[in-house]
């Protein structure tokens, strides 16, 4: 991947602190995400990866530090989260489509009701995106008629249709049948090639190495190591990273 370190910083996390009932879930996290960069967050279960992602679009409140998006702080009471979230797309682990709406209704909901855009224009964009993920023929299906992999691809299209500046992926393949993991990862890889800025939490090591510009390794709520994928996988700097990587090698 080309060097994106010189691109302007899109999202910056400064000294972030987050606790649940007095226990620190995230501590002293510093991270800058440059425009067009793909940052993959790795770490053992329960280390705080997902929490970090959820803090970035305000689904979790933080108790200290700052998150800066486009030069504006996302802390304090008067943050317009409804505005911000339109620019920060998120796809979750659980298939999160709305079961009472068809695929196309799911996709149109945000652009139409939140962004008040013209229906024809959204339809055009939705058609294009659906075609790209190979699901145009399922646009009138209900979520329950789709496989897990199809649902996740639709969820990605739904988020993309809002024209976000950055996409957050929270273990989007973790609940999938192994056979369906690839079709979802291919879509994300395609986005990376197009220059979409992304923060990805995953357990798919091979994919992480392939897609990432930078790997962030988190353990016990702290950033243990940040580096390029090659560096991280071949020459990890900390003992903890080595232990973690060993688990994934038989």
């Amino acid at each position: 991947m080309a060097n994106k370190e010189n691109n302007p910083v899109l999202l910056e996390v400064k000294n972030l602190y987050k606790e649940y009932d007095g226990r620190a879930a995230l501590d002293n996290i510093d991270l800058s995400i440059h425009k067009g960069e793909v940052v993959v967050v790795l770490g053992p279960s329960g280390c705080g990866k997902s929490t970090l992602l959820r803090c970035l679009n305000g689904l979790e409140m933080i108790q200290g530090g700052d998150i800066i998006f486009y030069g504006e702080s996302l802390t304090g009471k008067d943050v317009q989260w409804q505005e911000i979230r339109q620019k920060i797309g998120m796809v979750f682990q659980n298939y999160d489509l709305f079961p009472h709406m068809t695929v196309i209704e799911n996709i149109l909901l945000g652009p139409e009701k939140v962004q008040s855009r013209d229906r024809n224009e959204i339809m055009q964009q939705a058609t294009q995106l659906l075609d790209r993920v190979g699901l145009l023929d399922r646009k009138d299906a209900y979520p329950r008629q789709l496989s897990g992999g199809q649902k996740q691809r639709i969820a990605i299209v739904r988020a993309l249709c809002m024209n976000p500046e950055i996409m957050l992926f929270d273990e989007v393949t973790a609940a999938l049948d192994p056979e369906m993991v690839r079709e979802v990862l291919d879509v994300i890889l395609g986005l990376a090639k197009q220059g979409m800025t992304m923060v990805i939490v995953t357990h798919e090591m091979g994919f992480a190495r392939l897609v990432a510009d930078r790997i962030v390794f988190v353990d016990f709520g702290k950033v243990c190591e940040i580096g390029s994928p090659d560096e991280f996988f071949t020459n990890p700097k900390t003992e903890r990273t080595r232990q973690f990587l060993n688990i994934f090698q038989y």
Partner: protein
Amino acid sequence: MQSLGINVLFEGINLQRLFGGLLVTVEIAFFSIAIGSLLGILMGLIRTSKSKTICFVCRIYLEVFRIIPILVWLFIAYFGVTRMFDIHVSGEVVAVVVFSLWGAAEMGDIVRGALESLPRHQMESGKALGLSSLGVYRYILIPQAIRRMLPGAINLATRMVKTTSLVVMIGVIDVVKVGQQIIELSTLRIPTAAFWIYGFIFILYFIICYPLAKWSKKLEMKWES
């Protein structure tokens, strides 16, 4: 005449009177269900609130209506409250007020149950799209909750229709009371009058409640496919 007891239905204006009584029953049931449902939905939304005080108050309200028989509520309202505060209202109005309050309590519980049964990530993925809390409720949670609560709500509606027969006790002339009057008048001449009149009322209640049940089945089927 004894062999043709069914004639009691067609004597004089008996049939007309029975339908007049039925209208009173239907009116009370209709307004109670409509008002009770609206208040109940509001109540259900309030009960998903995180505030412990609000939930506690709503909970007490529900339990008070569940524990105390509706008949006692009717008596308290009609003979107690109206006298106490010197309000002059008809039995029908008192009935609608009591049944609405009862319906709101029960409906509130059904709505709360339906909303809480929805997965938490539905709320989150709605918010992640930039929807406001109100928008999430309007487009995502309430449409789904309605589907889940429908069987319980229809069940409540039919229960309310049936329970309106208690209004006799506060002097409202509903279909059951009209029936009693006709029976009293004709039972010496037609000993089987009670059978025919109550049998007819039985069919009337069935005609009101059955379509409700049928309709809910149909909606359920439609939403499932």
